[in-house]
């Protein structure tokens, strides 16, 4: 309920917050609510009601009924209750309602009128007590201090618990004030009481400050009290005592004061007062908050190992001084040292008897009247002890709650003050450091401008970069550093300031100008400076010399231009001329040349030139003409820079004449060295003296180097191209087929021979597989496997014979060889395959083998024939002479036929020559044989057989026929007939003029031979034994012989 009271809006019931209620109401309400007995308070004309928790528990009253008129709360029995209330109100006497166990107590206001009624319920335990006792109980338990003083000496008649506490639990009952509380004597209490006693006027005090000894033997304590002195009257109206009732407001008051001091100190800190002043104020605030206490503040040095500063106002100064420089661990540093070391508060309730610290410290304290102390470490933001706040007491004793709070307050404020000071000095240090930095940043020009754009500060870097001294430049407009190249300096400066003003900063990169008027490239930034209100107070300009960077950029740009110009060119002469042009244009050079030096170093040939309004020097020159300088340069390989030909001491008179003769007054010559020997040079001529800057010289050198490289590359490329072209020609026209194919099956190239031999084109065989199936047919798998093997195993050379089919279906035999695989630029692997077309050789070999076989066959057949001739001849002859003649004749015939056949490698013989050779064996017979017939070529076999038949016919004619008689003749006629598409030789042998012919009695070998032997070659011979002469008709089919001439 007490809590409820605190939170309820009481203004609806009684105006104002409880603190503004009439004293009586406040006291009564407190009393009512704090009582452990069920109690209710009725106040005002309509008996508004307040009750406590015990009441609510007993009667079932609800919290919201608080503050409501009794008539409403007790609506149902109001009429029975009302008379009792009104009676107490009018009589002012206590009324017991025995049946209900309630006692009604009248409450009197300051005007002594009954203005309220306190109803107490009978305690269930002590319900038999009378009203007085109950009220006494109430009195005793009341939450405010109360006492009743009787008589003019203010003898304590009754005191309640709180009052007894206030008085330090001293025995005061029955004693007059002066005796009971002698410590109040000088504090005006008695006179106040006297006045109330005399005048009968109630006295009310607020925040009355009083010092009381609250504990025996302990220092007196300051309290703040709100109280009322209320005169008590006898029934006759005479004042016979004073009712003292009040509330100890010390806690609240102290808090108030503490907050006030805190606020003041924080303001001091915030307004930037020096640390010493703040700490001094803090120390001085302590006695204001607690009369018994003084304080001293010790602050440690940087490393927090010793005390470096102290604050101890007034008579404490000599006290604090003794701590300066003392280590925190030194026993002489006492509680403060220990507090810092341990990082927690340290108390010393009785310094005189304390042996923890040095005697020196004890004496120091005692000498300054400090009997007890309490030190609490001051910590920084991180909780690190940085000092100690010491409360010093005149009397021994432990600090009370309030003093702990004071210590807390002191360390808190001191901590803030110290921290603030540290930040402040850090800021000041930062500023100082910044100033130093600006001054030492000599690579940068840093200066400030006032809002009107006038220079008001100027660092060393600015002096260096811009050439103006600080004295010269302060007060001048910032526009003096702007170069006129890209706009009116004043305009540019204004523009920049406006931009910085608008955006806070403005940056740029542009040409600037020095005091001496020289131009340089710099990047700069301008920032506006503003005060707290955002008003622009000036500008800072930071400038950095970018000349070098700019030059580097321009050089890069030039090099890119040069490269871009030269890259697409492939003709060395063109490259050189273009390079000369680009360089001359870029550096504004009168003439740029390139020349080559002869092997013996005696001549130069100037081959490239770019010039403007100066004579050409293209052509061949003798180096001697140009004097020793040039020769030396070429020998050394170093660049020569001549700013003025007419004055340069390195040049001879002759050289001056020669050079000025070609309008050269300044030049830079760069020899190009290859393998330690100058082979060419690049030269820049100026038609007037010229100061060549370092960057210009290096640019000329760069150009020379790059041009040379480009020329070399082009030449190398050209050489490569020629070589490639040669290789390509070799490839295309090599008399052997060549194919190049990749491992993914693509045919990269086939040469002309390949195409000629195979009849396939690149299109027919663009993929290796196609080529394989077209050319190899069923043999392709073997070939494919071989190629695959080659790719996977990287065999060095592989070679084998294959039959391939040409596009026309012709069979060719290729001896195919392949290199080990190479790698293409795209990572694929390739194989160069070459083939030897060995078809002709193979055919020859085959023919050879056939011929050999045939020869073998013929020889053997011939031998077999000879064997047969021998056997048969032997069978037919009766004496050896005959046999020799016959046999030799036949062998000779055979031999003659062979001779004819093998002569000139023909595979046969003509009919005529066969006949003549067989019959012209003897000279005298030649004229007796007539030959008549066309040229008919016979294959060897028919020719051979015909020869043997003719030989037999001839032998027979010589022995028995026409040639045996001197006049006999033989006619041989032959002709060629065609029957059923076949040519047939028809030959007739006719003998005339010989002896009469008789058919022979038996068939001899010769006749058999004649008649039968031609059958083997498809022919036949028919003998007719006619009396005038033998006739023989021979028929022989003629096969067309390939080798017929």
């Amino acid at each position, binding site marked *: 309920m007490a809590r409820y009271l605190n939170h309820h809006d009481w203004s609806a019931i009684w105006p104002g917050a409880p603190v503004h209620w009439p004293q009586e109401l406040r006291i009564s309400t407190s009393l009512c609510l704090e009582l452990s007995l069920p109690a209710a308070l009725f106040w005002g004309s309509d008996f508004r009601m307040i009750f406590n928790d015990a009441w609510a528990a007993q009667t079932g009253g609800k919290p919201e009924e608080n503050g409501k008129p009794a008539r409403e709360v007790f609506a149902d029995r109001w009429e029975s209750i009302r008379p009792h209330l009104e009676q107490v109100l009018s009589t002012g006497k206590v009324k017991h309602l025995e049946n209900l166990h309630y006692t009604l107590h009248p409450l009197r206001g300051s005007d002594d009128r009954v203005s309220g009624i306190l109803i107490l319920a009978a305690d269930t335990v002590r319900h038999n007590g009378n009203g007085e006792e109950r009220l006494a109980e109430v009195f005793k338990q009341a939450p405010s201090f109360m006492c009743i003083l009787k008589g003019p000496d203010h003898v304590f008649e009754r005191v309640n618990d709180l009052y007894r506490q206030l008085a330090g639990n001293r025995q005061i009952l029955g004693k007059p004030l002066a005796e009971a509380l002698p410590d109040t004597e000088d504090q005006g209490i008695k006179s106040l009481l006297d006045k109330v006693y005399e005048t009968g006027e109630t006295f009310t005090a607020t925040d009355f400050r009083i010092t009381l000894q609250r504990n025996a033997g302990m220092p007196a304590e300051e309290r703040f009290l709100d109280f009322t002195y209320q005169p008590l009257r006898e029934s006759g109206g005479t004042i016979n005592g004073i009712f003292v009732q009040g509330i100890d407001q010390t806690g609240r008051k102290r808090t108030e004061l503490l907050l006030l001091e805190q606020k003041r100190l924080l303001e001091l800190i915030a307004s930037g007062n020096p640390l010493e002043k703040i700490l001094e104020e803090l120390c001085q605030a302590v006695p204001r908050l607690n009369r018994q206490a003084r304080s001293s503040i010790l602050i440690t040095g940087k490393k927090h190992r010793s005390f470096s500063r102290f604050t101890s106002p007034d008579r404490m100064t000599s006290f604090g001084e003794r701590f300066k420089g003392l280590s925190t661990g030194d026993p002489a540093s006492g509680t403060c040292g220990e507090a810092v070391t341990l990082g927690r508060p340290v108390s010393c309730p009785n310094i005189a008897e304390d042996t923890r610290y040095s005697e020196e410290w004890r004496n120091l304290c005692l000498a300054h009247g400090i009997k007890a102390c309490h030190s609490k470490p001051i910590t920084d933001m991180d909780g690190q002890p940085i000092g100690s706040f010491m409360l010093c007491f005149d009397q021994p004793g432990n600090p009370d709650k309030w003093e702990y709070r004071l210590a807390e307050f002191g360390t808190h404020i001191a901590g803030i003050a110290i921290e603030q000071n540290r930040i402040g000095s850090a800021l000041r240090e930062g500023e100082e450091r910044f100033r130093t930095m600006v001054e030492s940043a000599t690579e940068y020009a840093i200066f400030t401008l006032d809002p009107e754009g006038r220079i008001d500060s100027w660092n060393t870097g600015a002096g260096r970069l811009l050439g103006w001294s600080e004295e010269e430049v302060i007060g001048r407009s910032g526009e003096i550093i702007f170069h006129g190249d890209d706009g009116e300096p004043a305009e540019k400066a204004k523009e920049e300031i406006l931009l910085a003003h608008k955006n806070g900063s403005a940056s740029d990169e542009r040409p600037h100008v020095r005091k001496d008027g020289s131009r340089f490239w710099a990047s700069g930034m301008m920032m506006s400076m503003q005060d707290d209100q955002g008003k622009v107070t000036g500008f800072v300009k930071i400038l950095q010399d970018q000349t070098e960077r700019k030059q580097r950029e321009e050089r890069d740009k030039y090099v890119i231009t040069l490269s871009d110009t030269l890259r697409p060119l492939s003709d060395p002469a063109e490259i050189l001329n273009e390079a000369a042009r680009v360089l001359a244009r870029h550096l504004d050079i009168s003439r740029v040349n390139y020349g080559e030096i002869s092997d013996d170093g005696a001549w130069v040939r100037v081959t490239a030139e770019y010039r403007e309004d100066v004579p050409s020097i293209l052509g061949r020159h003798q180096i001697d003409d140009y004097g020793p300088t040039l020769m030396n340069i070429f020998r050394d390989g170093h660049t020569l820079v001549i700013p003025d030909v007419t004055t340069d001491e390195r040049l001879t008179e002759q050289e001056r004449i020669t050079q000025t003769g070609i309008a050269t007054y300044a030049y830079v010559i760069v020899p190009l060295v290859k393998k330690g020997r100058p082979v060419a040079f690049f030269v820049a001529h100026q038609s007037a003296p010229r100061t060549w800057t370092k960057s210009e010289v290096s640019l000329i050198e760069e150009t020379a180097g790059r041009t040379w490289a480009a020329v070399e590359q082009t030449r190398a490329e050209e050489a490569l191209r020629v070589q490639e072209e040669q290789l390509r020609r070799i490839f295309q026209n090599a008399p052997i087929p060549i194919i190049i194919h990749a491992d993914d099956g693509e045919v990269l190239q086939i040469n002309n021979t390949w195409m000629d031999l195979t009849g396939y084109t690149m299109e027919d065989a663009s993929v290796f597989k196609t080529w394989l199936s077209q050319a190899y047919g069923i043999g392709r798998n073997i070939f494919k496997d071989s190629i695959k093997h080659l790719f996977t195993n990287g065999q060095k050379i592989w070679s084998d014979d294959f039959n391939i089919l040409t596009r026309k279906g012709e069979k060719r035999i290729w001896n195919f060889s392949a290199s080990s695989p190479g790698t293409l630029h795209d990572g694929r692997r390739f194989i160069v395959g070459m083939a030897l077309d060995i078809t002709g050789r193979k055919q020859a070999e085959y023919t050879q083998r056939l011929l050999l076989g045939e020869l073998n*066959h*013929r020889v053997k057949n011939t031998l077999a024939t000879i064997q*047969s001739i021998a056997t048969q001849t032997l069978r037919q002859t009766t004496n050896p002479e005959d046999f020799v003649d016959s046999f030799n004749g036949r062998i000779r015939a055979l031999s003659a036929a062979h001779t004819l056949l093998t002569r000139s490698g023909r595979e046969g013989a003509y009919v005529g020559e066969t006949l003549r050779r067989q019959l012209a064996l003897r000279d005298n017979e030649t004229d007796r044989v007539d030959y008549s017939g066309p040229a008919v070529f016979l294959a060897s076999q028919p020719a051979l057989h015909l020869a043997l038949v003719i030989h037999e016919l001839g032998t027979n004619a010589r022995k028995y026929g026409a040639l045996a008689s001197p006049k006999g003749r033989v006619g041989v006629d032959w002709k060629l007939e065609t029957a059923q598409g076949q040519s047939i030789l028809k030959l007739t042998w006719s003998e005339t003029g010989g002896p009469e012919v008789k058919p022979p009695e038996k068939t001899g070998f010769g006749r058999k031979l004649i008649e039968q*032997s031609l059958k083997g070659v*498809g022919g036949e011979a028919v003998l007719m034994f006619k009396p005038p002469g033998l006739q023989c008709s021979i028929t022989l089919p003629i096969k067309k012989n390939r080798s017929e001439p």
Partner: protein
Amino acid sequence: MTAKRILLVEDEYLVGLDIQSILTDAGFDVSEPAMNIGAALDLIKNNKFDAAVLDVNLGGQSSEEIAARLTDLRIPFILLTGYGRENLPPEVVDATVVEKPFDEQKLIETIRNLSLA
């Protein structure tokens, strides 16, 4: 016992004549030498032979056709060749071969061995 009938195929008339004489003297009944394939096949068609002597090369033509016919009729034969066994057509590579020029006795014995078998 009747004489064994021998088919003689030989395009070289002189050689054929010689073989005919040799084999006739040895007691065989030998056909006139067939000098080409057609003649040989005609003989086979119209006569019964116990064995055959076959020249491999008949005027440039191979006698393998005749060999095939003989094989079909289970008539044993010997091949007479100047080429050597290595140059025989594959069909007759296993046949009994007598190389030219031949030895009379060897030829007779070979024929005898054939017809006995």
